[in-house]
């Protein structure tokens, strides 16, 4: 009766347990407590939320392990943390301190402009962003155990998350109408491994959990992404850049559970105070867009 750890099933399994939940960005142990008390299923520990990374500029890197450890101590729910695209040593460090999930994230400044991390080499699971089916399946082939839309982080504008969700889910719907002999060329066109393309056609969905992220700021935004067919929600700057974080956090949690019930959505949307001010994603110059990072 040999126990096995670090298997792909265990990595995907943790994401399956997060489904129907909200994962919140936090920058202090106090914020992590607020998120947990509001019903978050996990927190993303980082030094600056995407809205501040956007504002302050400079190189954005993995957060100080000391801060991440303090947040891990403060809450009983899983703690995630971000590494730069391709920076496998930052990932080794986060694995060494025992974070529960690593986000190989376009929100940080990429460390490699050609290669992502070989995530199969790690026991800790990874989540990665994707704008379309090909990108999602490339990340899964590299070992990602969970996918999220990229959206446009730190804007408070949901439009890019909707675009990426519609792209991935629409491509899956079209794939299901294709004949088997058409899959070879389709896999080549989208730059994805054939076996994963076949698997997606058979399942009618990604073979891993698929969350929405990047610009979600209100309970209605969260329910919109759920009704489009996402499995759960990341909220980055949207909570702690708003006027009343505890109330908004709890409202978004309720909205994700009751995403199909407009009466409850109306109730939880009342009196939340100002949402984060945000910037229009369409108004961003090309060099300020984070979603284009990743290959």
């Amino acid at each position, binding site marked *: 009766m040999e126990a096995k750890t670090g*298997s792909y099933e265990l990595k995907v399994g943790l994401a399956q347990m997060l489904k129907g939940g909200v994962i919140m960005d936090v920058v202090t142990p106090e914020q992590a407590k607020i998120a947990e008390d509001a019903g978050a299923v996990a927190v993303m520990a980082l030094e600056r939320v995407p809205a501040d990374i956007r504002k302050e500029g400079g190189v954005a890197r993995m957060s100080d392990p000391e801060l991440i450890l303090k947040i891990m101590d403060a809450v009983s729910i899983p703690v995630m943390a971000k590494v730069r695209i391709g920076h496998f040593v930052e990932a080794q460090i986060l694995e060494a301190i025992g974070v529960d999930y690593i986000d190989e994230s376009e929100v940080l400044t990429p460390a490699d402009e050609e290669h992502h991390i070989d995530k199969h080499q790690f026991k800790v699971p990874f989540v990665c962003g994707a704008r379309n089916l090909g990108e999602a399946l490339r990340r899964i082939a590299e070992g990602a155990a969970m996918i999220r839309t990229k959206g446009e982080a730190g804007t408070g504008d949901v439009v890019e998350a909707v675009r990426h969700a519609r792209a991935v889910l629409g491509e899956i719907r079209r794939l299901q109408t294709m004949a088997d002999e058409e899959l070879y060329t389709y896999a080549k066109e989208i730059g994805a491994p054939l076996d994963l393309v076949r698997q997606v056609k058979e399942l009618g969905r990604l073979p891993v959990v698929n969350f929405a992220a990047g610009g979600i700021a209100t309970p209605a935004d969260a329910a919109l992404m759920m009704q489009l067919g996402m499995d759960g929600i990341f909220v980055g700057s949207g909570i702690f850049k708003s006027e009343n974080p505890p109330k908004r956090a709890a409202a978004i949690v309720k909205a994700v559970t009751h995403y199909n019930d407009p009466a409850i959505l109306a109730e939880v949307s009342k009196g939340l105070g100002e949402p984060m001010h945000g910037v229009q994603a369409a108004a961003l110059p090309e060099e300020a867009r984070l979603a284009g990072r990743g290959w």
Partner: protein
Amino acid sequence: MEHAPNLLPPEKVPAPRTDFAVGVLALQGSFWEHEVMLRKIGVAVREVRRAEDLEGLSGLIIPGGESTTIGKLAVEFGLLEPLREFGKSHAIWGTCAGAIFLSKDARRRQPLLGLMNITVERNAFGRQIASFEVDIPVPALKAVAPDDDRPFHAIFIRAPLIETVTPPAEVLATLEDGRIVAAQQGRLLATAFHPELTDDTRFHRYFLHLAGWKNK
């Protein structure tokens, strides 16, 4: 090469037409996976998000997920008392977070149903990198699969441990070292692991047997 067993929209599995239906608490977590298992067995399933959804059900599964989230949502939507009432006369099975929710003490301030005479320790094995899978013997499953001698493939994800089991609750399964990972109290069932992440239906059939399902 199915990566995530039972990660399907449940409506992809044809719904059986029977009077017998069980619920799956659908506040957060692995409720789809349980629904897919039950539908594969041939049982009608309903997602439970509000107290009125419990009406007419023969049993309820509380899935894996985050126990703090599930507890908080159960309080917010007035489910705590209806679930306690339901559990007095019906079968309830909690997996992982669900097992914590059924317990009377999790050594931490969070909403619990307190229906079972068990105490649990959350995240008893450590963080995600310590999550593990192992085959364990579960003799009770013989009740629904008399000819099947296989151990059960138990998947533990940031799992709790059942620390104490006091009568009328009984131990149902342990790890090799004797630590308790499953318990039963009448028609109430608690497992620290996730049968909904496997293709083995024995645990689900065992629960259905406790819920009074006759159609084998």
